[in-house]
């Protein structure tokens, strides 16, 4: 991933790569549009980001148990049910288990994660609002 895209995803403008002064073409016009002044950056401080390695992938979904998890947004349950129907039709050896995550949309659900870790092989999660 290039630095500009990563900066954008982290909430920082890629224009910050330009450094403390403005771009060269803008500097050229500075001489004709007024004296240079200095102004402070208004931004606060973001927390450091700990990179999380992704979980190893499965070699195949055949014979596996996939948890279909909704975060509770309207329509997610029906949508995930369609995914279950798709697997029944196209990959009948896959077992699907539907679960509604507890709490509000952004809330954690350690009980569910523990259940999935104990009984599941993969998760398809519908995330919305």
């Amino acid at each position, binding site marked *: *991933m290039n630095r500009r895209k*990563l*900066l954008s*995803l*982290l*909430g*920082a*403008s890629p*224009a*910050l790569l330009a450094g*403390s002064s*403005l771009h060269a073409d803008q500097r050229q016009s*500075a001489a004709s*549009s*007024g*004296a*240079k*002044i200095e*102004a*402070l*950056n*208004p*931004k*606060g*401080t*973001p*927390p*450091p*980001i700990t*990179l*999380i*390695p*992704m*979980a*190893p*992938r499965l*070699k*195949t*979904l055949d014979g596996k148990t996939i948890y279909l998890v909704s975060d509770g947004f309207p*329509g*997610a349950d*029906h*949508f995930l*049910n*369609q*995914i279950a129907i*798709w697997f029944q039709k*196209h990959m009948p050896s896959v077992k699907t288990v539907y679960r509604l995550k507890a709490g509000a949309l*952004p*809330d954690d659900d350690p009980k569910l*994660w523990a259940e*999935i*870790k104990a009984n599941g*092989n*993969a998760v*398809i*999660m519908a*995330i*919305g*609002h």
Partner: protein
Amino acid sequence: MGIPTAPIVTIAFKDLAYSNAAQRGMPHERICFTPHPVWGKSDAQMYAYLEGNDPVTHKPLMPEIISALTKPLTPDEEKSGTVTPPVGPEIFSGSQDELQDYYMNNGMTDFMPVILPTREKVDAMLKGTSHSPDEMIGKMCPAKGSYPEWSYTVRNVAVNAVMAGCDPSYFPVVLAIAASELPSLSSSTNSFATAAIINGPIRDKLNMNYGIGAMGPFAQPNATIGRAWTLLSKNCGSCGQPGQTYMGTFGNTCNYNNLIIPENEKDSPWEPFHVQKGFKPTESVVSVFMGLDIRQGQNGPGLGIKPVPQYQEAFAFNFGTCAPLFGGLVVCDPLVAQGLVELGYKTKEPLLDWVWKNATISVKDAKTTLFGLRMAGPGAANLPDDARIPIFRNASYVNIVVVGGETNPYHMVANMSHRGSVSIDKWT
């Protein structure tokens, strides 16, 4: 958890999904997308999404979901370690016009010209408080639990207060709002609004307007304190980036300078809002609110009754379309408050209790609202359809503040919840 996961999100939230994944430590998360929306679509339409293409990659969706769970990880996907997102240099330099463009084009303003925060102006602003410039005030993000929290110092807030056009004497109020950690710009697809009630001697010290036009563009402190709240939310809380940290489908014009409401304590017959919340009358306090909107209440029943209109009936009626997700805030002219005292409401509490009990919705109608009966309390599901239940969860969700210049006995109602009260005196 250590279990391979394929998140699915609709295309409308693409930028937000990628940004959130990156900020939480998985910049390469294998997110799959469907067309938007899912909500409201039939089963057949949803199945068609699955048989169709991911609108981002334009490749068949279900094979992509399967690949997300089975394709071996790349070295980037297996990386660990720490990344510190950059926020840019401490100083920007250029001509006045160039700097105005730079701040605006890089999302640091409200798209109106700002007072450029030179070192001299920021130093002058910092004299408005006894607190150290490097003191950490708090943390803010567009929605707690969903975004990383940015931290900010007294100096960070001073820069934003200068940009907003605040006088240094206003700075303690801005610091108190910053200390509330409530952003004026939330990330929801709703377009939320925020309000701040100001109480205590600070109002007169700063010449805040709590008379005619109090909530309009008629006084510098009223205008600029609210504007500073929005700027610091954007810059110190990483709020207000459309598509990433702001998803309000309409936007809300209140967000330009929020609803700054200095209470008219002098003409109110009741104890001030902050005293209700446990502060002394001589303390200066800011109380912050968040919710959906505010509207004028002139069509309420009871207002035509003479000699004293039944204002409380109008309040209850006008709350009728409010969402139980938030509480209710009545904003009334002192003439209304004085009339309610004549009706027997010598204090705010019995009035608020009455309004809570009488701002109701039928069970039948409640069942078909967005949230159904989820916030109505455990017994509501057992009630008949024609029973009426309070819109707000309990009386503490209903508040009232007195403001205005007594030109007429009008009121407004806001669908907003009180989110906390902070001492302004602490920040002087």
